C-alpha cells in the first residue's frame, strides 16, 4: 500500500511535476468541453489544421522575444484568432471544397512557421517543444494564463450552451429563430482557437488534435446526452493527462506522447466495451421486442 502511495507522491516532490499536473488537468477540461463540439460537428480536420496554423505566430513571438517564453502565449493567441476567423472566411468564399482550402493554406502556414524558427541557430530543441509540447516547462505565469483563459472558454460554452446546441444540431432553426448564427459560428471557432493556445505547452502543435477529439469521441461512445458527454470527456481528458504524465515520469517517455497515448487507450477500451455491449444486446430477445413495440406505436 505504501509502495503505491510512494509511486504517486514521489513525483510531487518536484515543483515542475506539480505545475505540469495542474496544467494537464485544466487543459483536459478545456479541450474536452470545446472538443465535444469539434467531434459532433465533424471539425477534427479543422482543429488539426488550426493548431498547425498558429506555428508562424509562435515563431514570431520566438524571434521577437529572443527565445523568451513569456510573449509566446500572446503571439500564439493572435495567430489563432486570425486563423480561425480566416478559415471561416475561406470556407464561405472559396470555390474549392472547404477541405482542400484548409489543407492548402494551413500546411503552408505550418511550413512558414518551421522556416522562421529554423533561422535561429540551435533551434531544434525549441521547435520540438512547440511541436510536441513541454509540459514540465510550464511556469506559474503559464498556469495563471491557462486558468484564466481556460475558465473563460468553459464559462462561454456553458453560457451559450443552448445556442451552440441549436447551431450544431440544426443551423436552419438557429436562423429562423433569428439567433445571430454567423456570430455564434465565429465565436465557436474562436473558442476552439483559444483552447488550442491554452493547450499549446502541454501537447504541442502536432498532437493537439488528439486533445480536442479523442476524449470527446470516447465520451460519445459511452453516453448519448450532450451534458453527460461533456462532463465525461472532461473527466477522461484530465485523467489521461495525469496518468500520461506519471507514465512519462516513470518510463521516461515524452510527456505529450504519453498523454495522447493514454487517451487513445481510453478510446480503445470504450470502443471494446461498446462492441461487447452491442453483442450482448443483440443476443437478448427482450431488447428486440421493445423495439418492435416502438414501431407499432407509430
Amino acid at each position, binding site marked *: 500500500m505504501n509502495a503505491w502511495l510512494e509511486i504517486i507522491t514521489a513525483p510531487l516532490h518536484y515543483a515542475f511535476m506539480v505545475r505540469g499536473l495542474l496544467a494537464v488537468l485544466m487543459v483536459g477540461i478545456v479541450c474536452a468541453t470545446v472538443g465535444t463540439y469539434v467531434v*459532433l460537428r465533424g471539425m477534427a480536420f479543422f482543429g488539426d489544421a488550426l493548431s498547425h496554423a498558429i506555428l508562424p505566430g509562435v515563431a514570431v513571438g520566438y524571434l521577437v522575444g529572443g527565445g523568451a517564453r513569456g510573449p509566446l502565449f500572446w503571439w500564439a493567441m493572435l495567430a489563432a484568432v486570425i486563423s480561425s476567423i480566416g478559415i471561416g472566411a475561406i470556407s464561405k468564399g472559396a470555390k474549392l471544397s472547404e477541405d482542400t482550402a484548409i489543407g492548402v493554406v494551413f500546411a503552408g502556414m505550418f511550413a512558414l512557421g518551421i522556416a522562421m524558427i529554423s533561422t535561429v541557430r540551435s533551434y531544434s530543441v525549441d521547435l520540438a517543444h512547440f511541436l510536441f509540447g513541454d509540459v514540465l516547462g510550464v511556469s506559474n505565469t503559464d498556469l495563471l494564463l491557462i486558468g484564466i483563459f481556460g475558465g473563460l472558454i468553459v464559462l462561454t460554452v456553458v*453560457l*451559450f450552451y*443552448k*445556442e451552440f*446546441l*441549436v447551431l*450544431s*444540431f*440544426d443551423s*436552419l*432553426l438557429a*436562423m*429562423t*429563430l*433569428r*439567433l*445571430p448564427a454567423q456570430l455564434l459560428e465565429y465565436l465557436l471557432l474562436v473558442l476552439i482557437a483559444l483552447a488550442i493556445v491554452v493547450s499549446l505547452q502541454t501537447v504541442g502543435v502536432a498532437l493537439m488534435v488528439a486533445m480536442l477529439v479523442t476524449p470527446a469521441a470516447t465520451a*460519445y461512445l459511452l*453516453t*448519448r*446526452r*450532450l451534458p453527460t*458527454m461533456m462532463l465525461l470527456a472532461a473527466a477522461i481528458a484530465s485523467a489521461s493527462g495525469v496518468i500520461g504524465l506519471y507514465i512519462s515520469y516513470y518510463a521516461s517517455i515524452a510527456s505529450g506522447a504519453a498523454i495522447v497515448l493514454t487517451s487513445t487507450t481510453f478510446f480503445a477500451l470504450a470502443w471494446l466495451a461498446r462492441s461487447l455491449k452491442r453483442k450482448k444486446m443483440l443476443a437478448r430477445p427482450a431488447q428486440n421486442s421493445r423495439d418492435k413495440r*416502438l*414501431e407499432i*406505436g*407509430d
Partner: protein
Amino acid sequence: MAILKDLQKPTLTGHYAHHAADSPIVEAAALNVGYETGLALENISFRVKVGERVAVVGPNGAGKSTLFKVIAGVINPTSGEVRVSGYAPGGHICIAYLPQRSQVDWTFPVTVADVVMMGRIDKIGLLRWPKRSDWAIVSRSLDQVGLSDLAKRRIDELSGGQQQRMFIARALAQEAELMLMDEPLTGLDVTSQEIIFGLLDDLRKNGVTVMISTHDLDQAAERFDRVMLLNHRLLGFGPPEAVFNTQSLLEAYGGHLRLVQNGDQLLALGDTCCDDGDGK
C-alpha cells in the same frame, strides 16, 4: 397571444415583426433567386391565406426547398420580395422550417424533449435557462403529437414517423404560425402518414398555415386546399383540379411523368420521386 408578448421583447436583431391584421400570411412578389448555376426560382408571385394547407409539388431540383428557405428568411432573394403577415420574414420568429429527415444528424446526442425545447430558445433569451413554463410547453407539444412516452428517448431510437412528429412538436413549442415542411411524408408508411395528416387537421383548427413539399401528386390533389406546381417557375397555383392539367404537368415534369387519359380522368403515374427510404 404569443405575438403580443413577443412584440415587446427586444432581441439582438431588434424587435420582432408586427403582424398586419389583413395581410396574407405569405405573399411573394416577382421573386427571383439565383444560384451560381442559374436561377433557382424565377419570377414567383403568389399569396397564401392564413390557415391554408398548401402542397408544393415539382420535380427534384425544382426549387421547393429554396422557396421554403426564402419564405423562412434564411436565404435572401436576388430580386423581388417575400412578406410574411405583411413584413419581411427576417423579423419573424413565428416561421418554422421543418427539415427533410435525411438532412438531420440522427446520431446527435440529444433526447426528443431536448429537440423540442430547441424551438423555445429564442423565447427563453440569451444567457437564460429554460423555465418551468418552457418545460410545460414542451411537454404539451409532445402530448399534442402523441410522443409524451418517448420524451426521454434518444432521437436515433425514433421511427421515421416519430421523427417527423418530433419536428412538428418543435414547431408547436416555437408557437409557429407558419410551418414549412420539407417532404415530411416521403418514406413514411401509410399509417404514419395518416397520423401526420391528423396532426395537420389539428393545426388547421388552430389557424396554423402549412406549406408542404411532396412528391405524391395523388395526396397533393386530395388532401390539400391548394396545390403549387413549381419547376423554377410557378406553373400553377390553385385548387388541384385547376392546376393538374396535362399541359402544366408536362411542363413541370417533362418526360419524367407518365400521364394516362382514363375517360374523363387524367392519371399521373409516378413523378421523379426519390424514395430514398430514409424512413426507418
